[in-house]
């Protein structure tokens, strides 16, 4: 895309994007740490993760200020407008993802008194969700709508993983009522991971809107794919 | 943006130097301008003082109080009406009118009346103490004696305005020349203004921009720069030799001057039309006005001050013109004011030209007086132009 006549505008947009990506980086790391703290029952790591969520919140505020400034001063249109609108939503999603990661770390702290016997496939799910987030951020940084599409498709597998884990935890609870607290904590962690993946999906959908101008949030995958491929011609 | 190597100093020495130099240059130009203006003003003042100084005496006529013998013999020989020694003192022009006067008033015969009568121009000039008055010393003594007795006075010279040219200077006036000027100018105005304005409107508002109109434009601009005497030749060829207009007539002069004024009026009108913003035309066209409506309702009223000024200045120039009239025979001895535009006539500048060539001292002051009158009229015309411009501009 050619440069804006007003160079400052380009700089501001680049800066904003950088800011969002660094926020994404923090979120990605927070997810990893949160899951790790659970698996390792690492109190210190959990506390650190909760503490670091503040940085994510601060970045959200900073991004909001920048978008507001750009709206007022540049009155963006078309692609720029979609970008700004998208950023507003993406930032909210990222902040929520940060909160959810902090929630997982809090789960870790609670689970220290009720250590779970079994983590079910939390480790796998954690890796998969992290991968989703990582893909989303890559797609965002490159404007790669195909990758974003893959994230959206893969979200279903996370849902499946979550449901499987939930059922497994349910059987633990039935088998041994003493495990109930630990299992509930674990199932909440799994729920948070599933929600994080949902937010990653939202971001990917937003990216497609930013890049292509099609709102695919509430259409099914095939229709979305069609819309996008129709664009390709 | 910010050039940190050069301190942003308003009052460095170098800048002060530049300022001084600039101010010196400014004041130098100021003085050049003032000098030029002063010179121009000095010339103007000199000219006016000179003209007025020369002209004022012409507005006064010396009269002498003498015995007029209303005798039968005076009906045939007017010299008999005054004492022999006073014959050169009393105006011959006045004496000449006696026989007719006596015939009309026979009851006066036999009377001997002491009355004020116009003095001879030489006496007049002598009384006004002008060099070269030409009065013989014998008469000088008589006049001196009369002055002693209080028999000499100066009165306002009404004749200068009411009579035509004359070979006797004390009887010469500008009346016929003024009438000729008015006739001539009226004709010029009636012909040059409508034709000039219409031509300009056509060229400016109606004609297409093609080779033909461009050639016309160039020619009109060149015509304005042609020496005016050539218009006289043109007038002579067209109006007198071809169309048979009487020579020396106001019609011939007026037509000739119209030819000369036409380009000036066309150029002034076009400039006035061009100065009307085209947004006004667009507005009118946009509302569905025709070309003619647009021009007549909107463009012309706005151009009016310019057109009037241009026309008046053109006419004023025509009024001061002599050269072309020389050629069509309007520089002539015309003692009686013309009654119509076909009679022989002369105009003020031509009258001035004629008088300037006369040898008698008395004509000299009349020349100056006529120049003063002409100048007054021209200045009034220019004043009128300024007034009209102001008046029309004030309306909107």
């Amino acid at each position, binding site marked *: 895309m050619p440069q804006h006549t007003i160079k400052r505008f380009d700089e501001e947009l680049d800066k904003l994007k950088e800011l969002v990506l660094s926020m994404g980086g923090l979120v990605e790391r927070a997810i990893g740490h949160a899951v790790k703290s659970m698996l390792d029952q690492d109190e210190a790591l959990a506390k650190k993760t909760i503490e670091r969520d503040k940085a994510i919140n601060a970045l959200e505020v900073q991004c909001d200020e920048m978008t507001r400034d750009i709206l007022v001063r540049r009155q963006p249109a*078309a692609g720029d407008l*979609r970008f700004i609108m998208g950023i507003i939503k993406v930032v909210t999603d990222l902040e929520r993802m940060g909160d959810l990661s902090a929630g997982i770390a809090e789960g870790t702290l609670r689970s220290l008194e009720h250590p779970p016997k079994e983590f079910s496939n939390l480790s796998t799910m954690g890796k998969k969700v992290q991968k989703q987030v990582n893909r989303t951020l890559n797609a965002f940084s490159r404007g790669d709508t195909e990758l974003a599409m893959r994230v959206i498709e893969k979200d279903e597998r996370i849902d499946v993983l979550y449901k499987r884990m939930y059922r497994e935890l349910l059987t633990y609870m039935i088998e041994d009522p003493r495990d109930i607290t630990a299992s509930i904590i674990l199932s909440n962690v799994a729920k948070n991971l599933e929600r994080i993946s949902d937010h990653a999906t939202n971001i990917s959908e937003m990216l497609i809107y930013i890049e292509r101008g099609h709102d695919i949030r509430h259409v099914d995958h095939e229709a979305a794919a069609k819309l996008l491929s129709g664009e390709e011609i | 943006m910010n050039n940190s190597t050069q301190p942003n100093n308003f009052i460095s020495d170098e800048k002060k130097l530049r300022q001084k130099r600039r101010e010196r240059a400014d004041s130098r130009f100021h003085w050049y301008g003032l000098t030029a203006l002063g010179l121009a003003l000095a010339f103007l003042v000199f000219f006016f003082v000179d003209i007025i100084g020369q002209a004022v005496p012409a507005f006064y006529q010396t009269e002498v109080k003498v015995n007029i013998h209303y005798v039968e013999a005076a009906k045939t020989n007017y010299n008999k009406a005054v004492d022999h020694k006073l014959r050169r003192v009393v105006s011959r022009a006045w004496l000449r009118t006696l026989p007719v006067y006596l015939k009309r008033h026979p009851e006066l015969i036999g009377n001997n009346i002491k009355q004020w009568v116009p003095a001879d121009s030489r006496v007049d000039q002598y009384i006004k103490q002008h060099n070269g008055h030409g009065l013989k010393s014998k008469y000088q003594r008589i006049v001196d004696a009369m002055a002693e007795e209080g028999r000499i006075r100066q009165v306002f010279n009404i004749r200068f305005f009411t009579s035509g040219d004359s070979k006797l200077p004390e009887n010469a006036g500008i009346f016929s020349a003024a009438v000729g000027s008015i006739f001539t100018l009226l004709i010029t105005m009636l012909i040059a203004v409508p034709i000039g304005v219409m031509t300009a409107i056509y060229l400016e508002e109606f004609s297409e921009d093609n080779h033909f109109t461009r050639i016309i434009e160039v020619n009109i601009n060149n015509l304005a720069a042609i020496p005016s005497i050539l218009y006289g030749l043109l007038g002579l060829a067209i109006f007198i030799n071809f169309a048979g207009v009487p020579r020396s007539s106001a019609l011939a002069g007026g037509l000739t001057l119209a030819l000369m004024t036409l380009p000036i009026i066309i150029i002034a009108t076009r400039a006035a039309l061009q100065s009307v*913003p085209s*947004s006004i035309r*667009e507005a009118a*066209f*946009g509302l569905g006005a025709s070309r003619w409506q647009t021009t007549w309702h909107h463009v012309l009223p706005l151009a009016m001050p310019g057109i009037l000024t241009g026309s008046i200045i053109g006419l004023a120039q025509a009024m001061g013109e002599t050269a072309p009239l020389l050629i069509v025979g309007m520089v002539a001895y015309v003692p009686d004011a013309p009654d119509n535009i076909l009679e022989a006539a002369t105009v003020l500048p031509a009258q001035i030209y004629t008088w300037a060539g006369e040898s008698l001292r008395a004509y000299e002051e009349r020349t100056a007086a006529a120049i003063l009158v002409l100048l007054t009229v021209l200045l009034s015309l220019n004043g009128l132009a300024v007034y009209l411009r102001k008046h029309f501009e004030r309306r909107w």
Partner: protein
Amino acid sequence: MNTSKVNIKDLKLWYGESEALHGIDIEFSEKRVTALIGPSGCGKSTLLRCLNRMNDRIPGCRIEGQILLDGDDIYAPEVDVVQLRTHVGMVFQKPNPFPKSIYENVAYAPRIHGLAGSGSDMDELVETALRRASIWKEVKDKLHTPGTALSGGQQQRLCIARTIAVQPNVILMDEPCSALDPIATAKIEELIDELKREFTIIMVTHSMQQAARISDQTAFFYMGDLIEFGETGTIFTQPEKQQTEDYITGRFG
């Protein structure tokens, strides 16, 4: 509801040797506001001036193609330009009231077209026009003072009143607010919003924001070509053509 009012078919226009419009096809809908945008010199004014044949006055200007107003070709030989201009009014970039009274400004066109006599008929017509241009309140006490003594924004509304006094169907506006301050601009925009109930409005504007604010449809021109034409919302959020996108996001040149 979107019946076509003006239909331009393959319009080409030359100024002497140079082609300023290269085959424009566009349809303007009735009682809607269409904004024409594009970089300077792309032919917006030229197109606009074709619609009431103001280009006829320009020597060496010739056109090809068709412009249909309600289905009739406005360049057909039997068309009277004067009549056409009473159907298609025009408001110019710089407010250009006649240097006459406010009343005369509005009454002029109805008078020359014989729409009203001079008595109370005309008074009524003038009042209606001034009211519809929402300037009546400001000028009702000084109808006989010069129109040129009004403020720029008032002058422009006076010009609009003057244009609608002859009841045109279509109003063309060439950058009507470019010489006005934001308040006056807002008043004109509000007025345009009112006027579109009765008139089809086609306006050229250099302000993208203005086009976005008041137009229903937007057409983007570039170097004498119509690049994109569509609903304003679409054009300003997701234009189809890269050139349009570049232009409205300020990435041009």
